[in-house]
């Protein structure tokens, strides 16, 4: 979790530094105000709302169809012999928390475009743009993690199918 936080801070700092590096006499602010502010606001507002409704569905589906599978529970029980600290729903709980932060970050990014983004300064525009880049990266990480879980689910289904066929 610490590494993830560090990565997010790094993405934000790097994008902020990169945008500020090219800032010259309000060029960034004008580009941001003319071309980016409105699309970023509507985009992140929609994304936040969409993620909010999708979050529960993803978690419930993963719980019912993957984490509650008897074969998965058996696997966790076997691996607990190697690491007693292993938990059944630990990864799912953390994924849920991460998705909540994704929603929160999307909404904060959207709100920032129409509040902080109105300040006529390159720095304010850079902050808004850097936060947009960070939020997109965080959502990409969340999407990747969901993909890993779904792949694992399909693998378990495939294994069960092979076992059934053998029986």
């Amino acid at each position, binding site marked *: 979790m610490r590494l993830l936080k560090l990565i997010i801070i790094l993405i934000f700092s790097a994008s902020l530094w990169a945008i500020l590096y090219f800032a010259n006499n309000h060029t960034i602010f004008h580009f941001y105000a003319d071309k980016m502010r409105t699309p970023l606001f509507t985009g992140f507002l929609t994304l936040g709302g969409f993620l909010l409704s999708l979050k529960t569905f993803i978690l419930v589906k993963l719980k019912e169809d993957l984490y509650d599978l008897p074969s998965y529970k058996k696997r966790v029980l076997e691996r607990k012999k190697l690491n007693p600290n292993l938990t059944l729903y630990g*990864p799912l709980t953390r994924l849920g928390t991460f998705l909540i932060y994704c929603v929160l970050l999307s909404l904060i990014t959207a709100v920032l475009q129409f509040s902080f983004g109105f300040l006529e300064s390159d720095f304010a525009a850079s902050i808004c743009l850097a936060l947009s880049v960070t939020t997109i990266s965080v959502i990409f990480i969340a999407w990747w993690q969901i993909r890993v*879980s779904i792949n*694992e689910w399909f693998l378990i289904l495939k294994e069960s199918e092979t076992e059934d066929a053998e029986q």
Partner: protein
Amino acid sequence: MKVRILGFEWITSKGITVSEFCNYLESISGREFSKRVIAVTKKDGFWVGILLSIKDMKAYCEMRDEKGGFSISPKELDRSTHIADFNFFIIHPETGRGLYQHYHNSPAINTFCFFNKQRYDELKSKIIENEWRGSGSGDEEKKLAIMKNYEGSLRYSLPMTEKDFQQCVSGLKKINHIVYEYSYFTEQERLFSPVGTYAKRMTHKVVFPKSKKVLTPQFLNDIKDAITEMIPNLKGARLKGVDPEGHEAVYKLINDYDPFAEFDYEDVIRTVKIDSTNLLKSICDAYFIDKMIEISRQPEVKAILSVKTK
């Protein structure tokens, strides 16, 4: 005298699986190779077997306690009688990990694995020869191409406890490298994704120079001391070297648990009954094989034998 159950792991090379190798061992069951006989068969989802080692000696010494001392006298064996060592073993067909029964003076687990490495190389040569002849081409290049498909040999390592590991390290003639294993046989919980099919392993490899100029006896002792000092802080380690008999030795340390059992030699030997005319059935019916399968079903041992690693 104690009979101990030790663990081992076989890692086959390209093109040959553990089951294919065990099938080959089953086909050569009962055949003698340099005074050693191996027999393997399948039982309860495991490959089970015995390694018999026939000793050359025709006489042995018997020590008799007498009032105030003892006397030693030679005992002759009949012409048709030999002294034999027996070592039962079981192997998980998917992971290549298994248990080996060992007692003092019987072939060490390293000798057992080396014996099987030789059989493995024989099998590999046979497969390559058959494929080459089957292709109908007398071309040496074709043979080389087939050989590439079966590159490598049987690798083996011996998971052991801290005490055994220290003893083995101190007895080594040469140390090639040591690999620290931080998460071997350990499942680290992932942050967001479920428990995967395979357990991961993170390793750090330290290779020592082969040159005799650098690897002086003093330097070797320093390495041994350093490794012995490090052991309590390691979760696992894999060490490759040369044992006192000159064989390549690979030892694996497990610090987390001691899953292996111990028995009294007298209790075990009373249960051994092997009939060469019905060798495979004798192994299947052996009391000690049942005992080893029972040990393999203990949750901790089962986890070690069956966990898949990449």
